[in-house]
């Protein structure tokens, strides 16, 4: 190992601090803002010292924003609920569709399987609007516009490639002989799939599920086009909220904090698998 002088150590320390400052400061600052009154926020120069208040959060939770101009309804908690509902059910559906398919692609070499897997992969890199704009017209005809089912269906575009490619890698890593041994012992294919393949791929399935949840939660463009206010997730809702509330910066900050916290916590929880998930299963962490 190379020896490092104390000067080098100091430089490294300074650089790491600077990097952390740049990448973490915005989150930290918005977090602080969410506990400030508008007066505190507007004070010049900005200060780290203020009387923390929970009024921003209570306004969001109660859904009533008291302003000088009167009382304003905020649908933000509904957005939060929508995000939770859309992400959860999208991931569940995606797991139900994707895990068996991932297994088929890993175990049976068949052309159709490769074609599906690669089509989904390449649409991961196609412009989402290309699919979304025609869909928005179809959805009108099918009556799926502004329905949870329509949105969950479209969210498969985000979740399915991710789950397919990560879980496929995990299935490929299981020796087929382990499954063969269970079959030969007298168990049906379905039982072998449930008792051997699924449990052995469980870490991959869990990781893919968590990541798919994060990406579904963070998605913006799908709901922007296909959902009206009542079905919008936080990403779209927050933007609408900014437009509607105008100058209620404290509440905006609190809304952002509430919106990003779930994914950040999940990310910290699942960080061991993030590398693998972010590279769609190409790099192991």
């Amino acid at each position, binding site marked *: 190992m190379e020896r490092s002088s104390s000067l080098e150590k100091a430089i490294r320390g300074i650089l790491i601090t600077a990097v952390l400052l740049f990448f973490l400061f915005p989150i930290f600052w918005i977090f602080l803002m969410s506990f400030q009154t508008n007066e505190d926020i507007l004070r010049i120069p900005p200060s780290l010292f203020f009387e923390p208040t929970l009024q921003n959060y209570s306004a969001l939770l109660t859904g009533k924003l008291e302003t000088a101009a009167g009382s304003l309804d905020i649908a933000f908690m509904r957005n939060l609920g929508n995000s939770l509902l859309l992400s959860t059910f999208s991931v569940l559906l995606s797991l139900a569709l994707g895990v068996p398919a991932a297994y088929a692609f890993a175990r049976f070499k068949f052309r159709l399987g490769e074609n599906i897997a690669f089509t989904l992969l390449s649409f991961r890199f196609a412009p989402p609007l290309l699919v979304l704009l025609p869909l928005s017209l179809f959805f009108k005809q099918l009556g799926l516009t502004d329905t949870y089912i329509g949105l969950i269906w479209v969210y498969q575009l985000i979740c399915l490639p991710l789950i397919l490619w990560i879980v496929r890698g995990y299935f490929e890593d299981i020796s087929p002989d*382990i499954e063969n041994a269970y079959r030969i012992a007298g168990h049906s294919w379905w039982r072998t799939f449930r008792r051997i393949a699924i449990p052995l791929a469980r870490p991959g399935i869990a990781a893919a599920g968590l990541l798919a949840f994060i990406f579904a939660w963070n998605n913006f463009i799908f709901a922007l086009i296909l959902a009206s206010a009542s079905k919008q997730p936080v990403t779209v809702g927050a933007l609408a909220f900014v437009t509607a509330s105008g100058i209620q910066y404290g509440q905006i900050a609190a809304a952002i904090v509430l919106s990003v916290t779930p994914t950040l916590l999940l990310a910290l929880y699942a960080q061991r698998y993030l590398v693998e998930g972010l590279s769609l299963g190409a790099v192991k962490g």
Partner: protein
Amino acid sequence: MSSLELSNISKGFKSGMVLEDVSLSVKAGEIVVVFGPSGTGKTVLLRIVAGVQEPDAGGITIDGVDMTDASPEARNVGMAFQNFALFPHFSTHDNIASPLTARNVPEGRLKEQVSAIARMLKIDHVLGHAPRELSNGQKQRTALARALIGQPKVLLLDDPLRNVDAKLRYEMRLELPRLLRTFNSAVIYVTQDYKEAMALGDHIAVLRNGRIEQWDTPTNVYRAPVSLDVARLFGDPTINLAPCRLETVGQGSQIHAFGRVSPVSEAYAEATGRDLVAGLRPEHVIVTETNTPGSVEFDLDAVMPVNVRSVLYLRGPAGEEVLATVGESEAARFGRGHRKVWVSFAPDDILLFDAASGQRLAPRVN
């Protein structure tokens, strides 16, 4: 009636044919060793019998029932894999019990049977362990117990001693035949170790390039190999080979090989004039310090002890290289070599092969 009957099994992959027209029958209680160098389709054959791969052609019957299209779980087959293939998330106990859970054997009986077989295989003290906590020997025994516990009609053992250490391999070679007989299954045992094949098999099927080249008892495979290839595969050190020609002299025939002229039975007369290869097992080479009738002077180049025997490297008058094996006490007389010795052999010990086809010459029976 045979318990397992394979008829004309063929299987090809993109890279070419792996099995061609393989037929085999195994009786209940019989051990058939499928022997062959690696890459000759032995494992594929087992997989086809187990039902995890499908043959392109041919059929499989087990106890008279056509199983060619049956799924693996319906075949009543036990299999021990070369890489053990234990279920990593099950305990040793649950691994062994898996064929019983498939049949819904009640809890109590299941426990009894598992501990009985675990005791038999001396792994009863590790029943609670996970596979990753076991030694290779214990893993191998667990895999074996799992294959045996269902008392399958057919038992498939894929080179089960390959991945265990030498001492255990030796023990198991002694222990296995007795163990397997108690279960009365039709056993196919795959190996690429000829000693294992000879020690365990009631019959040996020598598989080469996807075909069964010879099907016989171990003694016959060794004594009367059908071809040069089979002769080379059995025996360590390998058989001495020398090109030769059959000449007719007066009434009889003779060949010139290994430094001397040997008379050959009349039964081979029709091969006169063809290019042949003479084979002589090293243990059939008689090496003496003094001249005896019919012996030829050779240079002894080196002596290499191998276990209780020694291998002698001999060089003949015309530069022929011949290997001989002798017992330890006998070898002591030759010191470290570099001396003259006298070499002879019984003409009957010579095996004659056709050089072009590699087949052993069949004596013409009158």
